[in-house]
């Protein structure tokens, strides 16, 4: 399988990365090189094989449903580019 220019633009949008028209052909070439490389997986017989979901066989641990952290709003927003009263500021989302 390979991707065309329109697909490259669509992937970039899905990944939320701005891509200029000039960059599309180069990216298309790189992505197709990677897709050509992984193409060899199609020759593996995976009939009846379970996909790996856990690296080490273990039951998912659950913690108690109790508050064990918090009240650190200053820390939470400390690294934010723009904040006001412990809120993150973004361009207007709802008209």
């Amino acid at each position, binding site marked *: 399988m390979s991707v065309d220019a329109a697909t490259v633009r669509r992937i970039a949008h899905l990944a*939320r990365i701005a891509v200029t028209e000039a960059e599309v052909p180069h990216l298309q070439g790189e992505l197709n090189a990677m897709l050509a490389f992984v193409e*060899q997986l199609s020759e593996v017989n995976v009939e009846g094989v379970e996909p790996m979901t856990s690296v080490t066989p273990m039951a998912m641990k659950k913690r108690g449903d109790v508050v064990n952290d918090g009240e650190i709003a200053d820390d939470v927003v400390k690294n934010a*580019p723009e904040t006001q009263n412990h809120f*993150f500021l973004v361009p207007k989302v709802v008209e």
Partner: protein
Amino acid sequence: MTDLTSMTIAEARTGLARKSFTALELTDAHLAAMEAARSLNAFVLETPDQARAMAGAVDAKIAKGEGGPLAGIPLGIKDLFATRDVRTTACSKILGNFVPPYESTVTSQLWRDGAVMLGKLNNDEFAMGSSNETSCFGPVVNPWRREGSNTALVPGGSSGGSASAVAALLCMGATATDTGGSIRQPAAFTATVGVKPTYGRCSRWGIVAFASSLDQAGPIARTNRDAAILLRSMAGHDPKDTTSVDRAVPDYEAAIGKSVKGMKIGIPREYRLDGMPAEIEKLWSEGAAWLKAAGAELVDVSLPHTKYALPAYYIVAPAEASSNLARYDGVRYGLRVPGRSIGELYENTRAAGFGDEVRRRVMIGTYVLSAGYYDAYYLRAQKVRTLIKRDFEECFASGVNAILTPATPSAAFGVGEKGGADPIEMYLNDIFTVTVNMAGLPGIAVPAGKDEQGLPLGLQLIGRPFDEETLFSLGEVVEQAAGRFTPPNWWGAKA
């Protein structure tokens, strides 16, 4: 006074206990070495004030007889580990001047045991790379050079700063992370010992995530013993990482020098690649001969799905990365590039913040997870991963204790020499190491010799899950046979 920077951790531990020197003197010697070695670009942030304060506090504890197992040992920390109040960037522009208000579990355990932080070490951006050339701080230079040449070589990656700093005697050991070979390949390129522990052995909490089902932290050090000392402090259960395993941490150092007599060592035929350099082949046979001389039994084994590990990795790792890196949106931390709408803000921020390699992997990961392609790519890759793991399980079930392979298909290469035209060329560096991450197994890279140009080469040992001890015992046999390798200091006069 003996040269304080050329000692091993084990030797420094003895010296500190005997009061031959203080932790502060040891730290100062390393800070001076770092200053003289800035041309290597191994450190992206030096923290001398904090280092001296930590060393002073440790000296007070040692005086009271309360020094921990790493009391006064100066270490470098890969910039992927969150360090409280110390800038942590993953060497990406998108994290900018991120200063964590928390400490990663692994580093907090090192400080608990008395280690001293010298600074933050360079790495490939988000640990994506095999040469440390994708870092936003620029490439790291390998302290090793080809004989009679001044060409700057890469230290490997992604833990290039860690490997370079340890090899150049700037720190006694370093933290590193390994997703596809990022500890073992740089260790092999710099004649250091690098350990990628079993998945779940070290907590991932507070480490910048790349591919969560593959990422694992481990040490880079100058000897097997030093790596064992460091791993004991780094490992352990952490309730904050649900994949961290609740299992006692053994005294890894006790495995050093333990007999390997009667152990079965697998030699996998699929690792004998067409066109593999003769010197790699020779190194591999030598390694096998050393283990045999120490009483181990060599057996030919087959891991039939080996060749599919790298392509499966280049689906699984980018897929997980595209998901993990979705958090860098210019809103909560790091870089922000404004836009007229929130969508434009995201797109502008991520376009400006991610380097080429990271962008490429996020995009391929997004594609293989997108509607209509998930089954063909991601699901198939996860099935192939099951087969890769099964190969190892069957091999170990037949009585094999560990597997011996070369660590890398070549020695270190020049800065700018690989991957410019074709990204796959760079990816092939990890061909021997990536299988271990796919199967969640422990692996160690040990210096074993030099090539014709005088560059270090390493061997890899792959172990059963949670049997790092066997790897240390076998690694020590290789170390005793091959000796240790130190690069001549050309990068700066040392105090």
